[in-house]
């Protein structure tokens, strides 16, 4: 019997984005052609839009990408303009358009991060030193907001676990706690006691060490704009967006489950884990589906899609929660 050895797939054999995006466009056209005709708006092809995405003016310093292609998606990207002008960053205002308007005066450089708690190496570190040993990776992730909308974003960053390991956490380090900077002079939203400032988030240590967890410093090949959490933010793609804490100034290895901001605000609505889960509704709204903000942006029709368990990353992360009741540990 002949057993054929699998050749490594050449990158040239992988379906190029222009083709798979056209396929999506065909599916879309079949379902929505009539509606599009009826309202007299012919949507541009996703291929064209996606090409436009790359050509769009992108702000900030260009970064050198060390590695790309490890995490990609067969889904159209969200436009740079949409990623950077629709932000939940309450320190810069509660309206999603506000951060882009008010974050301009924020000084993201120079930046230091304090590493504290149960680790052999602790102290204050310049951002550059924190990142230096690691090549920057581009990873395209889904981002699902707890409010029911989602994006597809090409982040740039380094594996969180790779960075954390350098500080040699001890066996007492069961969780990792993160804190956002609190700088009232540059963050007008802090004047309102809407949340318990400073913003805090946390992960279990195995979640933090999971290869998907990303410390992001950029998007679309450039430095993070202030409104997206410059200069350093967390991206945990299988959890709701608010777990992705922005402008991190402190990372602490702790023994007990850390307090997190949204959980403090409403513990029955926002759990510690906050894994994307279509089977567990927010007490006030359904999480079964989401509105995808992607492609050419003029997606008035047909942008509602089913929400996937763990935001589509179940095969990679479900094992972290084996034996846990996800309805109780939401």
């Amino acid at each position: 019997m002949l057993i054929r050895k699998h050749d490594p797939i050449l990158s040239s054999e992988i379906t190029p984005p222009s083709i798979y995006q056209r396929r999506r466009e065909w599916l879309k056209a079949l379902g929505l052609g009539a509606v599009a005709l009826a309202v007299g708006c012919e949507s541009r092809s996703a291929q064209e839009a996606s090409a436009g995405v790359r050509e769009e003016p992108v702000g900030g310093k260009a970064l050198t990408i060390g590695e790309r292609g490890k995490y990609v998606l067969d889904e159209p990207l969200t436009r740079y303009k949409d990623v950077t002008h629709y932000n939940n960053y309450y320190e810069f205002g509660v309206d999603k358009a506000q951060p882009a308007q008010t974050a301009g005066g924020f000084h993201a450089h120079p930046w230091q991060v304090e590493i504290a708690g149960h680790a052999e190496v602790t102290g204050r570190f310049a951002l550059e030193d924190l990142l230096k040993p690691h090549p920057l990776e581009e990873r395209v992730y889904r981002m699902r907001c707890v409010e029911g909308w989602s994006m597809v974003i090409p982040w740039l960053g380094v594996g969180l676990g790779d960075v954390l390991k350098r500080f040699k956490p001890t066996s007492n380090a069961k969780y990792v706690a993160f804190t956002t900077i609190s700088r009232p002079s540059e963050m007008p939203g802090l004047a309102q006691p809407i949340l318990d400032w400073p913003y805090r988030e946390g992960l279990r240590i195995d979640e933090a060490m999971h290869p998907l967890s990303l410390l992001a410093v950029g998007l679309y090949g450039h430095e993070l704009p202030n409104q997206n959490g410059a200069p350093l933010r967390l991206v945990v793609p299988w959890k709701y967006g608010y777990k992705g804490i922005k402008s991190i100034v402190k990372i602490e290895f702790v023994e007990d489950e850390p307090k997190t901001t949204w959980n403090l605000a409403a513990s029955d609505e926002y759990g510690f884990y906050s894994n994307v889960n279509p089977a567990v509704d927010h007490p006030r709204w359904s999480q079964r589906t989401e509105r995808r903000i992607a492609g050419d942006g003029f997606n008035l029709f047909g942008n509602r899609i089913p929400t996937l368990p763990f935001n589509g990353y179940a095969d990679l992360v479900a094992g972290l929660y084996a034996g846990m009741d996800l309805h109780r540990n939401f």
Partner: protein
Amino acid sequence: MKAGLSSRLFFRDRIAVSKPFAFALCLLPLALLVWDTLREQLGTDPVAQLEHRTGDWALRLFLATLAITPLRRLSGSAWLVRYRRMLGLFAFFYACVHLTTYLVIDLGGYWSQLLTEIAKRPYMTVGFSAWLLLVPLALTSTRRMMHRLGRRWQQLHRLVYVSALLAVLHFLWLVKADHREPLIYLGILALLMLARSDAFRSMRARALRPEKALAQSR
């Protein structure tokens, strides 16, 4: 006497002129919405934007409708009541656009979700009820229905207060953390209700016309 007649004529003319103007004004938010939609100026999440803007205008016109009677009493301008039905129907109109946007554009294709949404989500239950209560009021808003129902018309139309309260609750319940805006609407509604209450009316009457109020109480 003559002056009174001419001023009455003047007011009639003014209403004749200003009513179409008010009508156009009420349509302006819709026109801007259509304009922004066609020019793709609704921002990153156009569906949410359409829902928010139509909801906001439904609520604003609703409160404007409820403000007519207290304003008429305060100012003594009886002609104000001539705008009440139009404002109320426009509030209902924007509520219909709001609901349609949710059903057709937002929920598009996932209609099986609708019933569970309305039944399970308090903010949906309350919002849908607010709209449902307005339907009979809109249907009986014609002059003919007013005559046919007689006294029961007023009883029926008291539902408007329940609907307004539900509409504000709908807004309050869907907000994630910043309750300031819906609380402003709630505050205005509370104020309007207070201005209608008998206690407030008699208090005001006494304050404005002490001798008359005294005479009445004797």
